[in-house]
C-alpha cells in the first residue's frame, strides 16, 4: 500500500499538468463543438450537431477539407519521389562521408518551421533566386507567381517533410537484404527490373509509414500554408485559426478541429490494418 502511495505521489504532478493542459482542454473542445455562436462571438450553450451539419452542407468548408486532403496526397507523393533516391543512397553507400551525409539529411528538422518557410521566400519570391535566374536568362519577362499560392505551399511542404520521409524509408529499407537484389541480377534481371520487382516491394512498409506520417503532418500544417500561401490558401489549420481568432466563432473552430482529429484517427486505423498485414 505504501508502495502504491509513493507511486501515485511521483505520478501526480505530471498527471496534474496533463489534466489541465491536455485532458480538460480536449474535452472542453469537444463540448464546445456542440454549442452555437451568433455574430460577434457570443456563445450560446447548447447540445446540437448544428456545426457539423453546417460543415457538411456548406460548399465553402467542404472545399477546404477537399483542398487539404488533396494537398496531403500531392505533397506525400512528391515527398516520396524526392526522398526515395536519397534514402536508398544513404542505405547503400559505404562512403566515409555517410555519417556526415546522414546528419545533413536530417539537419533541416532541427531548424524552426518559421525559418524553414521563410527560406523559401528567398527562393520563390518575385525577387527570389528562381525568378532572378529566369529573368536574367531572358526566359520570362515578368516574375512567375511561385508563392502566395498552392504551388508555393506545395514546394515548401515537400522540402520540409523530406527528412521525416527519409527516416521512415531507411527504417523500412533496413529489413531489406542487399543480396536479394544481387541474386535477381545474377539470375539475369536488369538493374531496373531488379529494383521494381525486388527492392520496391520489400520497401513498401517504409513507403506506407512515410506517406502516412507526411499526409498527417501536411493535413495539420499551419505555418507553411499561412506564410507561403500569403493568406490566399485556405486549408483546415488556417481555417481553424481564422474562425478562432478573427471570426471568433469558437464552436465552428472546435468542430473543424474535431473533424481534423477524425481524419487523423482514420489514418491511424488504416495504418493499423495495413501494418498488421506485414507483421505476420
Amino acid at each position, binding site marked *: 500500500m505504501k508502495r502504491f502511495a509513493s507511486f501515485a505521489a511521483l505520478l501526480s*504532478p505530471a498527471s496534474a499538468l496533463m489534466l489541465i493542459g491536455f485532458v480538460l482542454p480536449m474535452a472542453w473542445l469537444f463540448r464546445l463543438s456542440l454549442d452555437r455562436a451568433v455574430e460577434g462571438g457570443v456563445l450560446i450553450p447548447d447540445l446540437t450537431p448544428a456545426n457539423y451539419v453546417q460543415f457538411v452542407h456548406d460548399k465553402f468548408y467542404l472545399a477546404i477539407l477537399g483542398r487539404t486532403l488533396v494537398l496531403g496526397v500531392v505533397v506525400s507523393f512528391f515527398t516520396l519521389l524526392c526522398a526515395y533516391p536519397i534514402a536508398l543512397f544513404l542505405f547503400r553507400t559505404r562512403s566515409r562521408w555517410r555519417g556526415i551525409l546522414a546528419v545533413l539529411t536530417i539537419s533541416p528538422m*532541427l531548424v524552426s518551421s518559421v525559418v524553414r518557410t*521563410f527560406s523559401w521566400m528567398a527562393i520563390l519570391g518575385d525577387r527570389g533566386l528562381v525568378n532572378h535566374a529566369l529573368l536574367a536568362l531572358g526566359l520570362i519577362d515578368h516574375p512567375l507567381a511561385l508563392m502566395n499560392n498552392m504551388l508555393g505551399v506545395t514546394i515548401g511542404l515537400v522540402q520540409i517533410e523530406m527528412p521525416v520521409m527519409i527516416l521512415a524509408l531507411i527504417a523500412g529499407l533496413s529489413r531489406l537484404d542487399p543480396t536479394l537484389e544481387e541474386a535477381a541480377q545474377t539470375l539475369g534481371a536488369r538493374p531496373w527490373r531488379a529494383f521494381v520487382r525486388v527492392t520496391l516491394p520489400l520497401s513498401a512498409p517504409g513507403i506506407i509509414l512515410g506517406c502516412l506520417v507526411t499526409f498527417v503532418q501536411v493535413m495539420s500544417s499551419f505555418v507553411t500554408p499561412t506564410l507561403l500561401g500569403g493568406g490566399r490558401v485556405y486549408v483546415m489549420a488556417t481555417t481553424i485559426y481564422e474562425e478562432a481568432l478573427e471570426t471568433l466563432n469558437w464552436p465552428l473552430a472546435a468542430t473543424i478541429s474535431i473533424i481534423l482529429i477524425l481524419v487523423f484517427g482514420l489514418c491511424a486505423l488504416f495504418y493499423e490494418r495495413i501494418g498488421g498485414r506485414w507483421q505476420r
Partner: protein
Amino acid sequence: MRIAVRLVIVLLYAFLLAPIGIVGLTSFSNDAYLAFPPAHWGLGGYAALLRNSEFRGGLEVSVLLGAAVTLLTLALGTAAAFAIARFRFPGGGALLAFFTAPLLLPTIVLGLALLLVFARIGLLASFTGLTIGHAVVAIPYVIRLMLTALNGLPPNLEEAAATLGATPSRIFWRVTLPLMRPALLAAAALAFLASFDEVTITLFLVGPRLTTLPVEVFRYVQNHADPQVSALSVVLIVLTVGVIVLIERSLGLMRSVSRS
C-alpha cells in the same frame, strides 16, 4: 546510368539543403527587401536586427519561458519516468502512451483547445498559461528520454546501495540521478528547444504585451520579408546547432532522435 543517378542525388540534396544556404546568403544584404542575389551586399540585416526592440522583447520572453518549461518538465517528467520504470505497476505502457499523446495531436487543435479553457480560467496571455501549454508538448520528450536512461542503468548499483543501508530517497539523489546526468542534459536541451521553437500553440496563448520570439517573427514575416529576418534565422540556426552539439556530446544525436 551511374552518372545520371549521382546527378539526381546531388540535385535532391540541393533541393533539401539549398533553402538554409540561401537564407545565410541573403542575410548579408543592405537591401530593404528580401532578394536573391542581394542588390547591395553588407551587414545591414544584422544591424537592423540589433535595433529591433520587438524581437529583443520576444527573445527575452522566449528564453525565460524556455527555462521555466525546462525546469518544470524535468522535475515532473523525471518523477513520472521514475515511477513507471521502478515501481512496475501494471499499465505502465498505457501511462507512457497517455503522457506522449499530445505529440500525436495536431498542434493547431491543441492550441485552440488550450485557448478555449484558458479563456475561462483566466490564463490567457499569461506566463503561467504559456508555460503549461509548452510543458505539455515538451514533457513527452523528457519522459521518453528519462525512461530510456532509467531502463539502461546497471540495476545492481542501486541494489548495492540498498544493501549497504541507503534509504530509497538517498539512493535516488546519490546514485540514480548522478548516473543519469547525460540523459538529463539531453532532456533539458530537447525540452528547451521544444519550447523555444513552438509557434502554433503559442499563437493562441500570447497577448499584446507578452509574445515569444517565434510569434513575433511569424507576424513580422506575414507582412514584410527582409534581410533582417534572414539575419535572425542565421542567429537562431547557430544557437540551435550549439544546443545540438551539446546533446551530441552528452548522448549522441542519432540515439536521441531515433528514440524520441
